[in-house]
């Protein structure tokens, strides 16, 4: 399930830490990027790799917002809905996205392309309202710029980061 290249990278990563369990969250990021989400098989693979129980790995994975235990879209849009972004139009952006994509926050488009997720403060308040698409910040976002970004996403012209 995990490529040799990724496995080699993880072997190097583990060496950074005096206790190898420390590598768990970075490993979960990496495995999620490769598999698409943290499926039961992915959790089991990570557990075996670090000699932990799958339940233990699951308890950690379930704690963090960026780790997904259910299938998510190819692209992930995070929308900050904390105070400053709300003051400057976050709910308007959320309604716009929901209308354009025909899904609610927390859902994935039926074609599996895009997931929407509400996030807490992204440390982008000086350039609010802010969103992240595939790990990349977009700031001072308007419904118009959202439309442009969605268009680029659909055409595969939006460069994401391996998160």
């Amino acid at each position, binding site marked *: 399930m995990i490529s040799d290249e990724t496995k080699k990278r993880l072997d190097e990563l583990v060496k*950074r830490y*005096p*206790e190898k*369990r*420390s*590598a*768990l*969250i*970075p490993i*979960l*990021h990496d495995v999620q990027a490769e598999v698409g989400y943290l499926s039961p098989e992915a959790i089991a693979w990570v557990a075996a790799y*670090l000699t932990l129980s799958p339940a233990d790995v699951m*308890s*950690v994975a379930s*704690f*963090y*917002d*960026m*780790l997904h235990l259910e299938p998510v879209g190819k692209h992930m849009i*995070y929308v900050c*809905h*904390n*105070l*400053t972004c*709300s*003051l*400057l*139009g976050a*709910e*308007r952006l959320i309604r716009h996205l929901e209308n354009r994509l025909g899904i609610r926050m927390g859902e994935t488009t039926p074609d599996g392309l895009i997931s929407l997720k509400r*996030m*807490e*403060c*992204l*440390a*982008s*308040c*000086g*350039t*609010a309202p802010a969103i*992240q698409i595939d*790990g*990349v*910040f977009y700031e001072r976002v308007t419904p118009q710029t959202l439309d442009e970004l969605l268009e680029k996403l659909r055409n595969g012209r939006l460069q994401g*980061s391996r*998160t």
Partner: protein
Amino acid sequence: MAFEKILTRYTNIPNYTGTIDEYIAHGGYQALPKALRELQPADLIETVKRSGLRGRGGAGFPCGVKWGFIPKDSPKAKYLVCNCDESEPGTFKDRMLIEEEPHQLIEGLIISSYAIGCRLAFIYCRGEFVYGAQVLERALREAYGRGFLGRNILGSGFDLDVHVHRGAGAYICGEETGLLESLEGKRGQPRMKPPFPAISGLYRSPTVVNNVETLSNIPHIVLRGAEWFASIGPPKSAGPRLFSVSGHVERPGNYELPMSITLRELIFDHAGGIPNGRRLKAVIPGGSSAPVLTEQHLDVPMDFESLAAAGSMGGSGGVIVMNDTVCMVRVGEIVSRFYHHESCGQCTQCREGTAWLHKVLRRIEHGQGRKEDLDVLLDMCDNMKGKTICVLSDAAAMPIESYLKHFREEFEIHIRGRACPFEGKGAF
């Protein structure tokens, strides 16, 4: 009076991209050889104590005192962990420091590691800082390339490795023991204290956790001296501070200023005042955990003591400005939603308290408030403070108490009128 920029001196240089060559060309990495060659670790700790540098993450604890708690005679490894989990709503200065001036932080981190006897340090970045973490990784490679990291740094016999470690989205990992749990590969649930991290921190070893901005000050203190640093701003709140100003202001952004600056000067002179001819209604001066202030507090200086005396706190330096169109019940609904979402769930007062605060505030905002709700809210807040493993619970309760203190009438109007009286009914 024009204030000399210290932390943002480099980032204001045109076309500056933060590579190691640019940093060095503008005076960077001069403090490191000075520290390693001319100063003993104990001298450094003493210098930082005398400088009066206080933590810039939220608690404002004296940095040199924190370093001094590390036992000198412990046979265990010692760790320095840089807290770059910047997640306090309204705060965005550490992100700027790592993205635009990574080497200032790294130089501070190396000197600080030397001071406390650390050979392996980590920079814990919040998971959403994908780009910031990449910038830091690149900068670390550059520093290794120049011999500022690794074995026998600059011929001093001092060894240090530094790694970037990304979290995965959890506010509580900014709490230092939650951060250490997370760095150990666990749920980010804060630990009981004592023991404090200085005695038993990462891997049960002596550990210092310092914020990005705190560490970024260190090279300047080493180069220019404790007395120079202590002379900036009020005596008990020395040195420059980055204020992140956001919300209803003309020019939101990070402003580096001495803490003698008043709220009025910060909002109106630096950030350009309130747009569209609106009036200021409320301002949160130190991140969303800080109690709210109003127009009557505009002449309060932004130092730790003055803000505390005004009933709020300096916190993380995140200043959220709200104009007179803003409904404070809606603000309470948003802020309590945040703490409810971020409570780690260990302590009953916090897990249940944050959930109920949000539930009650939401029903008031949406016209279903009950006559007794305001007393219920205050009673819950009282039961949430000082009773839990960490202060997230207090941080959830304090702002709500302050909204009720300054805007009680507004809450009562919501309950009496069975609706939000503001235009758009909390559409913001």
